[in-house]
């Protein structure tokens, strides 16, 4: 089924919407939930299997990052711009990142560990993947994806 929605729905006429559109509130809720718990946005939209896989993948990436002695970049202990940039990647984890930041967990670099840079990469990529998952939840809610 392919429809072109009229402009009063909020979509410009040239954007083709092919799948059911969730109400505006649900679209926003899906993104916010995805930020709180990876995959929760998809769960709200009824994509249960995908939600579980996303949660497991992001959680596994985060856990491997910590096992490899990685640390989260936070602005309070990051004097240089590159560390703050990396902090934006970590921020994609959402609530787990904010909790760790406020509690001071996993925010100190363990530079003596041979694997700490691998760990940092795992943590940053888990945040970046969650950004993509949030956008995917929004696209599904907006009718752009199945």
């Amino acid at each position, binding site marked *: 089924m392919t429809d072109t929605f009229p402009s009063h729905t909020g979509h410009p006429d040239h954007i083709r919407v092919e799948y059911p559109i969730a109400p505006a509130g649900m679209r926003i809720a899906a993104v916010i939930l995805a930020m709180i718990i990876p995959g929760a946005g998809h769960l709200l939209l009824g994509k249960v299997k995908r939600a579980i896989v996303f949660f497991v993948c992001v959680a*596994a990436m985060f856990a491997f990052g910590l096992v490899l002695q990685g640390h989260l970049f936070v602005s309070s202990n990051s004097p240089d711009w590159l560390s703050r940039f990396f902090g934006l990647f970590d921020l994609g984890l959402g609530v787990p990142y904010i909790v760790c930041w406020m509690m001071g967990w996993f925010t100190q670099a363990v530079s003596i560990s041979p694997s700490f840079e691998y760990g940092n*990469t795992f943590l940053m990529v888990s945040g970046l993947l969650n950004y993509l*998952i949030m956008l995917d939840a929004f696209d599904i809610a907006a009718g752009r994806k199945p």
Partner: protein
Amino acid sequence: MHFLAMILFSLIVGIVFALLNSEITGGRARLLYGLKVFGLFVGIGLALAYLMYPFPR
């Protein structure tokens, strides 16, 4: 340990990318795409490692 980290990284990213790609429909096509992403990550990683072998520092 480095190789294991690369395998784990490639596996997780391959799974997520396969599920995020909206141009792919069907379980088999997703599986093949995920395997392709996984293989590319591992293959390019090994190729770069091989290229950097003469320059350890």
